[in-house]
């Protein structure tokens, strides 16, 4: 199988995994608010672990392109939040929502998925084993993220199937970005430090701007810190052996 097909298959798997986010909600349609906080913390920790793996694998690359790529990542996510008017948006409010809020949340989730596609491609280019692990970590991360999105949609009367479909749809960009970035690496390998810096910075930025803020209010500082560090540590330690 051509390696780009592997990238396609694993990125598609990661996007499809988002549908599992509704499973929890089938049992408990209106979950306790702390669950949403922990879901966000879990997703945040997995992303930070992914950023650690990228940065520690880029150990021999030039600092200049890494720094430039990172600034590009920070700048692009900052701009996309500013342009879409979502810089201070809480992603997991369950009460009193208008359709405008829901549209904004779906937009944020769609933008959020793009750097994760780049992450999968960068990891695949570093080593296939790391790439597969990274895709699995992103897939695992998509589940709690989809739970938060689906809880919001279902509290507005959407069916579980519809919520699952929307969750997967917001992640479809991941597949496009993963295969596109991987093709770019094949054509022009020198771009890898740039995309690595870009992906790592974007992951960290998204964690801080989207995932962590609201969950501290929902689940308490200590439990959020423990869940985040556990998830981050698992990814960093298991993946550390693969790069």
């Amino acid at each position, binding site marked *: 199988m051509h390696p780009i097909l592997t990238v396609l298959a694993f990125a598609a798997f990661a996007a499809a995994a988002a549908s599992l986010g509704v499973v929890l909600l089938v049992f408990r349609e209106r979950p306790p608010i702390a669950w949403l906080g922990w879901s966000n913390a879990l997703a945040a920790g997995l992303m930070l672990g992914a950023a650690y793996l990228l940065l520690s694998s880029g150990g021999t690359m030039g600092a200049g392109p890494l720094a430039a790529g990172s600034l590009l990542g920070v700048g692009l996510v900052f701009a996309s939040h500013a342009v879409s008017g979502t810089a201070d948006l809480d992603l997991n409010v369950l009460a009193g929502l208008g359709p405008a809020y829901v549209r904004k949340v779906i937009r944020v989730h769609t933008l959020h998925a793009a750097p994760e596609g780049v992450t999968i491609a960068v990891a695949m280019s570093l080593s296939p084993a790391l790439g597969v692990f990274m895709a699995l970590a992103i897939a695992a991360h998509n589940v709690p993220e989809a739970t938060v999105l689906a809880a919001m949609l279902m509290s507005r009367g959407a069916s579980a199937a519809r919520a699952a479909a929307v969750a997967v749809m917001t992640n479809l960009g991941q597949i496009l970005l993963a295969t596109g970035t991987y093709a770019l690496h094949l054509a022009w390998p020198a771009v890898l430090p740039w995309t690595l810096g870009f992906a790592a910075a974007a992951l960290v930025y998204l964690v801080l*701007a989207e995932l*962590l803020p609201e969950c501290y209010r929902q689940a308490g500082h200590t439990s959020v810190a423990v869940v985040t560090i556990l998830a981050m540590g698992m990814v*960093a330690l298991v993946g550390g052996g693969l790069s």
Partner: protein
Amino acid sequence: MSEVLAVFGYALGTALATGLGALPFALVPLVSARAVAHANAIAAGLMLGASFGLVAEGTAHGTAPTLIGAAFGVLFILATQRWLNARDVVFGAEHGPRARQALLIVIVMTVHSFAEGIAVGVAFGGGMALAVAITVAIAVHNVPEGLAISAVLRSRGSSIVRCAAWSVFSSLPQPVMAVPAFLLVEAFQVALPYGVGFAAGAMAFMVFEELLPGALTIARRPTVAVLVTCTMIGMVLFQRAL
């Protein structure tokens, strides 16, 4: 004997360099609540970047010991927090929650210096030929750690001199641990991943438990995200270059 003295002297020099981290705050006033939140975000980014570096160093010596060390690091800070919460902490002119956070960052950074001292001693154990290079590298590496401490202390009412003094204090375990680690390299090499993991766990927990929530409740999210991401990646690239 002279070699032991040299190791102690070099490691003491690196500890003094930590005080330089207080200097930037002589130029920037940290009075508004928002400035405090920004200082928290900067400290969080620097410490998160430093903990990434520690995990990378620890896992190079053994994954399981790093993990065990990190778990104990988290538990240690949890226990220390419990202990401090039950008391009215006084730190300089401050007391209450602000003093508690100031004291906690000094404790976290001081504890983490024990692990760094071991790393220094083990590095010197490889031979004194590289002594000056190692010393300069560690001294420069300590400056942003002083910056992280000073960001928290300065924004909680400490003077520049106090910030510098506590920064140096937090690094004093380095010369203390460097000497036995230098003399007993093999024994301390085994302990290294546990110590480094412990330091990483303690720092990461302080970041996610105290600094980030403090920053995010007051400052705007994009500002926090930009500050943390840039200082974190800056720290990773900076440590790598040494």
